[in-house]
């Protein structure tokens, strides 16, 4: 029997012949913390008595969730993280550099390695063919110290995507559709493995968007095979040498195969208060929106800002709808400035936030008022997520977000394209 991508990568990073269901000890190629999970991880590390860290160049601390700090407490947490980096030799990505998952993609993740992040959206790097998964502070702390973790080798679902997106339909619509189909726990403990003609045609930005949300169906990881698109992306980041050709064996065993025809999809939206609560955008047309947020590790990349800028060019946001933009990294911001997208977005009435997580986690920079609805390009809409349990969050593509900002109501972007 052949191997899935997950089984191949975990075999290569352990001393086991990894098959679904096995418990293995895996070598961890990259481990990272962010400012919400890092302080607890460092406390646990201290408690463990392990003083050395296994590979300081591959242990990264990101200040992104509460950055710049909105409070004294969080500013002090940032000091703790910076001091640890200085003492241990771990790397630090400070305030304004961007969201951890975007920076991991740009500068750190290598195809074929095991990546652990103390953040559930660490699955994003699966788009580069890394077995990337989120864990809690203690697991990642121990991985930083020992360079190892224990893992159960997951069963895999193959997600076979054919066809091409029609106008106004994007990777975000596809992944929301998939999560609606699987349910919020439909892939718990599983690896989602993407394949098919449409996947081969996808840009890296599209792959990151899809891999990022694998965890919203409960998955442990969301893996893409590597190809010329992967190689070109790594070359563009000066990391071409880390390319590794990876694909599953043709006779690999999949627990489920799900087929999706990309050409049959329409703009899709997730309704409050769970990500799998899916509808078509046109079915919710007319719902008033107080705030639109374009950004995050799901949809804060250059391609996303390009789509938003194309829709908003020469137009204004609705006077009763706030429009917030947070580029996923400082490189994305610089490129968006050069391309003129930022100028366009600001002229349309957008507020530019620093590269980072922005209001996604409810910490700062755009908490919602009671009864307000937000259309966000993020990945979660749980009750209270954006700082207020009395508010409502809808999730959609950057195109749906931009169209809705113009009209002030949930709007199918195809109407404005």
């Amino acid at each position, binding site marked *: 029997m052949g191997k899935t991508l997950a089984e191949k990568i975990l075999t290569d990073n352990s001393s086991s012949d990894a098959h679904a269901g096995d418990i293995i000890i895996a070598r961890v190629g990259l481990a990272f913390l962010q400012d919400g999970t890092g302080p607890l991880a460092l406390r646990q590390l201290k408690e463990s008595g392990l003083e050395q860290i296994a590979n300081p160049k591959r242990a990264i601390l990101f200040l992104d969730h509460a950055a710049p700090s909105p409070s004294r407490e969080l500013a002090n947490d940032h000091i703790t993280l910076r001091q640890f980096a200085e003492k241990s030799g771990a790397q630090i990505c400070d305030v304004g550099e961007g969201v951890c998952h975007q920076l991991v993609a740009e500068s750190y993740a290598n195809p074929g390695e095991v990546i652990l992040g103390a953040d559930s959206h660490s699955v994003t790097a699966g788009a580069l063919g890394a077995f990337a998964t989120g864990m809690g502070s203690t697991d990642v702390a121990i991985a930083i110290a020992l360079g190892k*973790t224990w893992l159960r080798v997951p069963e895999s679902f193959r997600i076979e995507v054919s066809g091409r997106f029609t106008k106004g339909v994007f990777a975000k619509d596809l992944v929301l559709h998939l999560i609606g189909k699987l349910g919020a726990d439909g892939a718990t403990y599983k690896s989602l493995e993407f394949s098919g003609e449409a996947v081969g045609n996808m840009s890296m930005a599209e792959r990151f968007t899809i891999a990022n949300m694998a965890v919203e169906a409960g998955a442990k990881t969301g893996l893409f095979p590597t190809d010329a698109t992967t190689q070109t992306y790594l070359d563009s980041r000066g990391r071409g040498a880390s390319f590794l050709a990876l694909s599953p064996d043709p006779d690999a065993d999949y627990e489920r195969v799900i087929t999706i025809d990309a050409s049959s999809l329409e703009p899709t939206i997730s309704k409050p208060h769970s990500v799998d609560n899916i509808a078509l955008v046109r079915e919710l047309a007319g719902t008033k929106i107080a705030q639109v947020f374009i950004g995050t590790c799901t949809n804060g990349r250059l391609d996303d800002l390009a789509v938003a800028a194309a829709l908003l060019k020469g137009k204004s946001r609705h006077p009763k709808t706030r429009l917030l933009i947070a580029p996923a990294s400082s490189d994305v911001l610089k490129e968006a400035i050069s391309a003129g997208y930022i100028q366009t977005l600001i002229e349309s009435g957008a507020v530019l936030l620093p590269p980072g997580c922005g209001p996604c986690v409810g910490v700062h920079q755009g908490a919602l008022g009671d009864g307000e609805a937000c259309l966000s390009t993020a990945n979660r809409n749980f009750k209270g997520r954006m700082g207020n349990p009395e508010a409502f969050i809808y999730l959609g593509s950057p195109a749906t977000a931009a169209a809705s900002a113009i009209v002030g109501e949930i709007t199918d972007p195809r109407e404005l394209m």
Partner: protein
Amino acid sequence: MLRGKAFKFGDNISTDHICPGRYFHLRSNLPELAKHTLEDVEPGFCTMINPGDFVVAGLNFGLGSSREHAAVVIKMAGVAAVLAKSAARIFYRNAVNVGLPILICDTDKINNGDELEIDLTNSIVKNLTSGTELPVGKFPDVMLSILEEGGLIPYIKKHGGF
């Protein structure tokens, strides 16, 4: 042997419900953070439970963010164990790592306020109110060893590694 009352919740209780993001600034002040445990689902939860009671939930308990604080604050609030029909992957691992027992069983057979008795060593849950015994899903060996040591840190301190 653990004995306490069931505090019943529904399906899909996320880590945002358990430990809301708006208290992000309290994450290095765990006793304060713990005062807000589950407050968006059950306001005043922390004042309503007695130490040793149980959180009893439906499907997919603890979905969402990796914040281990969610498992920590449930434990600090005095909850002796979580029982659920199923649990999200990261939360399940976090609970074991911080020494919070999490048991997978058919929680439809437990009502709010039922008196429960749990034998962790032998994985037995008894509903004393209804007089029934519930089968419990088994932990993988590695998790059982971690739980028996009281969490991942004591486990690593004792064994030096995996």
